[in-house]
């Protein structure tokens, strides 16, 4: 089911949580809402799920206005950040809950409930935990049960609020891949909220980057990483170096008062200046970290620090030492006006 969000606004007191949001979610896609905490992403998710209401704007499911439908009637599965499992019910009863509270004439038979619940528990590979209580499960297991519970009512849309937020790094990685596989199997339109760029880039079909209640960019993981639309996206996703044009005369002439955003791996280092755009620097620190070598250099003009990443092979071909004087040249960059830069 596709979702269409048009001119959505939401205000909490004097604070604008969502500012004129427009977004189209395609049927069957897995979308990430990415941004720092307080950017409005969870609010947007809760409005889609019917747990909050917008002040103004339109929300359409498959072209149909769902404004008047409350959470019960939206057929949306919601997975909460802290799972919100019913602590006094077994895993089985948690998953069965959505089926048991259906109106009598729609409620499946006890045998059917049993079959469905076990099917779902098998899907999340936790059938063996059916009789346990939530307090007896690990974080990762709770997360998967919460997902199974949401899927039990056969939602047309699945919403996940920071699904891996409370888990440790190892479990997070595993669950990420697992969620991706599950989505490929079920193809339910899914939206998940995260503040972790790696998570968004690895799992989602498309990423929506939000900041201060505004959508900064919508695109595939590759697009938002390789072609950030705004300075915020540049800084939020991946590492970036800032070059101020005022520090370098040739640039200033070309771009006026502007800032160039350059990824650490998009910078070349050479022993001699090849043209006027090369900048003289001094090597401050060389650190080999796994497969890459990180070099920290200081601009001679302003002594600002610049971070550069080289592959190990490249570094070995032309090794550097602390104190070397060399020249750097950005290979790829984007220029934003000074005022718009954060």
């Amino acid at each position, binding site marked *: 089911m596709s979702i269409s969000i048009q001119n959505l606004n939401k205000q909490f007191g004097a604070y604008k949580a969502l500012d004129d949001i427009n977004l189209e979610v395609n049927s069957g896609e897995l979308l990430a809402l990415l941004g720092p905490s307080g950017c409005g992403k969870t609010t947007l998710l809760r409005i889609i799920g*019917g*747990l*909050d*209401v917008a002040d103004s704007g339109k929300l359409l499911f498959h072209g149909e206005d769902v404004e008047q439908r*409350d*959470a019960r009637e939206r057929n949306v599965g919601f997975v909460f950040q802290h799972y919100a499992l019913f602590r006094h019910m077994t895993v089985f009863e948690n998953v069965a809950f959505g089926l048991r509270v259906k109106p009598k004439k729609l409620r499946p038979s006890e045998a059917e409930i049993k079959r469905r619940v076990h099917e779902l528990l098998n899907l999340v590979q936790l059938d063996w935990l059916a009789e346990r209580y939530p307090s007896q499960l690990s974080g990762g297991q709770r997360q998967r049960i919460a997902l199974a519970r949401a899927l039990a009512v056969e939602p047309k849309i699945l919403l996940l609020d920071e699904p891996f937020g409370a888990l440790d790094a190892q479990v997070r990685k595993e669950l990420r891949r697992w969620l991706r596989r599950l989505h490929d199997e079920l193809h339910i339109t899914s939206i998940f909220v995260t503040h972790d760029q790696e998570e968004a880039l690895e799992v989602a079909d498309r990423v929506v980057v939000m900041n201060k209640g505004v959508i900064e960019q919508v695109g595939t993981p590759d697009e938002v990483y390789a072609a950030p639309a705004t300075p915020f996206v540049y800084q939020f996703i991946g590492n970036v170096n800032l070059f101020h044009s005022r520090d370098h005369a040739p640039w200033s002439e070309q771009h006026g008062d502007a800032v160039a955003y350059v990824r650490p791996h998009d910078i070349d280092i050479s022993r001699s200046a090849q043209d006027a755009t090369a900048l003289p620097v001094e090597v401050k620190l060389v650190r080999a970290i796994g497969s890459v070598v990180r070099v920290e250099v200081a601009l001679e003009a302003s002594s600002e620090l610049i971070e550069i990443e080289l592959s190990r092979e490249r570094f070995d071909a032309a090794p550097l030492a602390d104190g070397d004087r060399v020249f750097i040249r950005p290979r790829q960059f984007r220029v934003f006006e000074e005022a718009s830069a954060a």
Partner: protein
Amino acid sequence: MSSFKAHSVLPGFNLALGFTLLYLSLIVLIPLSALFVNTASIGLGGFWDVVTGDRVLASLKVTFTASFAAAVANAFFGLVVAWVLVRYRFPGKRIIDALVDLPFALPTAVAGIVLATLYAPNGWLGQYFAELGIKAAYTPLGIVIALTFIGLPFVVRTVQPVLEDVEAEVEEAAASLGAGRWDVFRRVIFPAVAPALLTGFSLAFARAIGEYGSVIFIAGNMPFISEITPLLIVAKLEQYDYAGATAIALAMLLISFILMLTINAIQWWASRREAR
């Protein structure tokens, strides 16, 4: 509606709040307002004349002095009891811990008659007091005894959880810096539990001021000597002096409010201090 209440998907707000407000108004707010309205009918001057009457002032003095003495006794012994229950192990501790709440559960009239019997000149405990030439029951001392019983759990129950939370590491740090055991208590532990102790003291004090049932049996109830203010209200009522009873009741209510505000202020101050 939207500005009064934040949106929520959960139902039942109007029903629940509506019922709450209705019930609260009928049972508490309207009846309590009767005190203010009826006092207004005798005017501020009349109110002042009643509450500054000799007998009223004497009863207030008895009530406050006895309540304060009982609260002080409970502050000291309550701290010792809380300390012993948190820090030491001994047989029967769990039962004793549970028994601390007895004054909350035992009807005040029962407490009253049994304390009067125990501390009467020929009672189990009263006889020893009598030997020392001290009359316990039917004197202001009897009032203090009853109020001590009533207020006993407050200090214990407010101090206990705080004492449990004092980290062993902090004490160890103090000890490793050369502090003796008494220094550790005085400089590290006591400041940590002081706000809770003060809260417990105030709660016991506030409860004692309004107490009636446990006191009247042991007090002797002699005007100007061992007559507490709540009893004076009852006496006025029995003489059909409704205006007098109402005025004294209002005075007590205002005193209770001030105490309640004080307690809240202490807790607010303590939580702020903790957060720093």
